[in-house]
């Protein structure tokens, strides 16, 4: 009998985790690496550059002549660009029962930075992959989510909220929960994190940091808060005597993650916005296998009849009161244009566009990759793969697991979306570098980065597709948020009446909520003018 009672009192509680056994699990996990032949196969990895738009971009930049149009069509409103901003403008027009419009998208698939892909394992994002749980102030976002069933009677659908474990950080040779560094900190570091949190809390209380940003900017900014836009967040940390390397990494990571910019090139106002704008009523964020493609997909389905695909707009001119929009073989005429393509393209497309308007726009170059994993790498030390997996002090931003939101208990395969904002050099240099290096170079760079945390990664990956984005997202450089040129973009222009810019660029911060807000606002402005009604519902911009 005694033999059977190794723990006399507890008698090996059912399915429990006695220490001995976790040790055994550990042995099982590491044995393959330590004992027996490590099978070193140089597995071939397929892949290519995908969704390239450089060529079209360069054609526009170089003003390559396009064939003359053969067809004519007429609409009250033409939306240029089918990213989230363009789709949201269309969504708003449709909601207001306005049907006399068309949306022109150059790609075969609308979605822009919220585009997605799919293979036999799962759908996966190419860029935007989550939306923080919107608080009560984000009325437009909530409205959309209610329409698509993500929000019911004030409750968020559990399956769309990011599953546990959400985030982990590889630091000092091990994984920790969450991205805020917690391993290896001294008391001094902790004190600085605390002080930083307190400062952000104070900013939050100011109500100046909101999503959409415009709401908070409309409230008078206290001078010390507006002044934040005049220094970089890196300088600001210095001024506050916050020099903990962990804190500096954490803030720099946030800037690269949200803006594709290093802390030294990010406005302190925007840097603070990342922390001070978010107050969550529910543990999130909202995410789906295809990332924000989930939203794009539903908008596209709903608005399909208004969308023209493969319709690259190459010229917009205005004669008298009508706009002429040239796209593919068609000349569109419209009373009003909603320009939701990236704003830096405007001078190349729009006749009479004042160059001063776009001179302050700086864009961050990015690279994303989707890795198909035929088996999952071994996890050492019993940690489980999180949704977001970050490596401390890596130039990359880590990877997102596309099938993290699976309700399966067991997944054999996966797709990882790997993010890399090329923030180490200037945007111009990085862009050149991005174009210069071939697929093999980037593949090796990515696998080498990942091999630090998953030594067997090369044996797991069968495919690695890479998307290069020279102008991936607007960068809130120092001074940009409160610059006159940014504000000017949100207002009508002499000579360009009834043309409204709508891309998320206008906000200086590239996130779904901004794209939606800009798209909806532009739609409301266009509607107000077209219906000639006095009751302009457009928020003051």
């Amino acid at each position, binding site marked *: 009998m005694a033999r059977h009672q190794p723990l006399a009192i507890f008698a090996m509680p059912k399915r429990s985790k006695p220490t001995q*056994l976790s040790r055994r*699990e550990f042995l099982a996990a590491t044995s393959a690496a330590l*004992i027996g032949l*490590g099978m070193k196969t140089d597995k071939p990895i397929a892949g290519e550059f995908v969704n390239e738009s450089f060529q079209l971009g360069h054609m526009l930049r170089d003003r390559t002549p396009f064939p003359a149009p053969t067809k004519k069509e007429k609409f009250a409103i033409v939306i240029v660009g089918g990213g989230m901003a363009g789709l949201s403008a269309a969504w708003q027009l449709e909601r207001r029962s306005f049907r006399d419009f068309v949306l022109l998208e150059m790609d075969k698939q609308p979605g822009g930075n919220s585009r997605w892909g799919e293979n036999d394992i799962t759908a996966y994002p190419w860029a935007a992959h989550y939306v923080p749980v919107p608080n009560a102030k984000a009325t437009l976002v909530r409205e959309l989510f209610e329409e698509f069933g993500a929000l019911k009677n004030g409750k968020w659908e559990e399956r769309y909220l990011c*599953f546990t474990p959400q985030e982990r950080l590889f630091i000092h040779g091990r994984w920790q929960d969450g991205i805020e560094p917690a391993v290896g900190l001294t008391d001094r570091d902790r004190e600085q994190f605390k002080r930083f949190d307190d400062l952000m809390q104070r900013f939050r209380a100011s109500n100046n940091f909101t999503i959409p940003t415009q709401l908070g900017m409309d409230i008078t900014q206290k001078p010390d808060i507006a002044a934040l836009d005049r220094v970089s967040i890196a300088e600001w940390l210095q001024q506050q005597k916050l020099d903990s390397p962990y804190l500096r990494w954490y803030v720099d990571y946030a800037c690269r993650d949200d803006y594709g910019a290093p802390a030294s090139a990010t406005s302190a106002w925007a840097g603070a916005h990342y922390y001070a704008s978010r107050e969550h009523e529910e543990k999130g964020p909202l995410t789906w296998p295809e990332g924000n493609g989930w939203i794009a997909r539903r908008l596209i389905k709903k608005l399909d009849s208004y969308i023209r695909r493969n319709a690259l707009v190459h010229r917009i001119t205005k004669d008298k009161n009508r706009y002429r929009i040239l796209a593919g073989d068609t000349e569109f005429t419209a009373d009003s244009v909603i320009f939701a393509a990236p704003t830096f393209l405007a001078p190349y497309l729009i006749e009479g566009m004042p160059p001063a308007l776009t001179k302050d726009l700086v864009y961050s170059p990015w690279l994303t990759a989707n890795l198909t994993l035929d088996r999952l790498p071994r996890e050492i030390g019993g940690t*489980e793969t999180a949704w977001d997996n970050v490596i401390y002090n890596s130039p990359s931003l880590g990877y997102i697991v596309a099938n993290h939101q699976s309700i399966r*208990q067991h997944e054999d395969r996966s797709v990882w979306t790997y993010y890399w904002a090329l923030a180490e050099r200037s945007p111009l240099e990085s862009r050149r570098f991005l174009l210069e290096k071939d697929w093999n170079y980037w593949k090796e760079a990515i696998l080498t980065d990942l091999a630090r945390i998953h030594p067997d990664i090369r044996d797991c990956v069968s495919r690695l597709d890479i998307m290069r984005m020279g102008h991936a997202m607007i960068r809130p450089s120092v001074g940009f948020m409160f610059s006159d040129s940014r504000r000017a973009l949100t207002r009508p222009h002499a000579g360009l009446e009834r043309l409204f810019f709508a891309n998320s660029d206008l906000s200086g911060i590239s996130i779904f909520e901004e794209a939606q807000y800009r798209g909806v606002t532009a739609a409301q402005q266009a509607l107000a003018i077209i219906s000639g009604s006095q009751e302009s519902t457009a928020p003051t911009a």
Partner: protein
Amino acid sequence: MPALLFISILLIAACGLIYELIAGALASYLLGDSITQFSTIIGSYLFAMGIGSWLSRYISRGLVTQFIWIELMVAIFGGFSSSILFLTFAYTQGFRIILYFIVIAIGMLVGLEIPLLMRILKDRFEFRDVVAHVLTFDYLGALGASLLFPIVLVPQLGLVRSAVLFGIVNAAVALWGTFLFKDQLRSPQPLRVACLLVLTLLCGGMAGAKHVIAAADDSLYADEVIFAKDTRYQRIVLTRWRDDTRLFLNSHLQFSSRDEYRYHEALVHPGLAANSSARRVLVLGGGDGLAVREILKYPNIESITLVDLDRQMTDMFRSNDVLTKLNGGSLASPKLHVITADAFPWLEQSTDMFDFAIVDFPDPTNYSLGKLYTTAFYRLLAKHISANGMIVVQSTSPMFARQSYWTIVETLKQAGLQTFPYHTYVPSFGEWGFVLANAKGATYSPPRQLPKDLRFLTVSAIPELFEFPADMQPVAAEANRLNDQNLVRHYDREWRDISH
């Protein structure tokens, strides 16, 4: 000086460094914190070498014989160091003690090597040449070893085989020594026999390296392992001692044949016996067929659907003699439909309705399993339950994991269900918990009749199961959700507290 002699010095030096590296690597792998492990191991090793060098002064006669014995001892200690350490880690609590014992032993022996060699050689050659050459080759050997270790040995051979391989090298050098220094040896024959013995032993060790991990593994089960299989999803291990058969999944005990009837009667009957109109039953998990055995005691049940992730489990419990005797061949019942599927997605696509659902998953030891204990899961399950139907959930121990238990109860509540928590005593698990749940507005009263051939439950005992003594009473808890799996954290903490 002859080149052969220096090659053996080089080899000895390489061996010495390799054992040190192996001990450091192994300790970092097993204990974590590689900086501490490597520093303390290198430190103790060098210190032990110092002791060895100092002790060398006490060896005055038969230098060559002594040197060869030392080589053989290094060969054995070093060659088997990884195997011994792995097994110690698996079998005992004394890993660190054995680790430092081995490191110090090898260190001392290696510390003896060079001083002895120098003294052996000093009569044959110029002393300054001896020092220069011996030390040069010593350091060269160390360089070779330190490069070989990460580039070739660990990736190609692993730690156990690398150690044995270098043990063989040490023993071979010893054997070689008996020829190199034969003029300084009075009777080389016994030494050569000893060398050959050690070599044979180490070659055997090389062949058996594979089994070391397996042995370490099996040792963790107290009883004889009668069946072990790694499936795609889990490691299934069956053990037996006399009349007691036990099933472990990923090392977690699932049942002991001595008292599993208590667990399975308590799981099935309080709910199922209370609903005489039940026709269709769903079992999630429970591929062992033991819950099905209990359900088959009701003639009114027309169909049973068993959903288990692992076909190998259900196959094994359908075909193995020992196991079919346990479950009474329940898995061969014509009423039973076995479905091999992941429960959550299966429920999502199924349109079947059931009068009773038994949720018998392994405990929420990780976030993957934890998904099967969430509001989202229970809400989905509830959609498959008929108006008067019920669900029962095995819910870990309300005594050892009180917070976890009441978290599961709260989760069912937050999924919109009424709950009826109860518990029973199963000797091999301890106090164990279950929760019955049904739709709001439905009723439940404990059964007034039970199937005849039960070994544990009686009609009068059932109402008592719903009474919780003071140390198991409800505690405040928050629901376990897909986006906030607090259950896994509670569970981990509570069971860890107990096993420490």
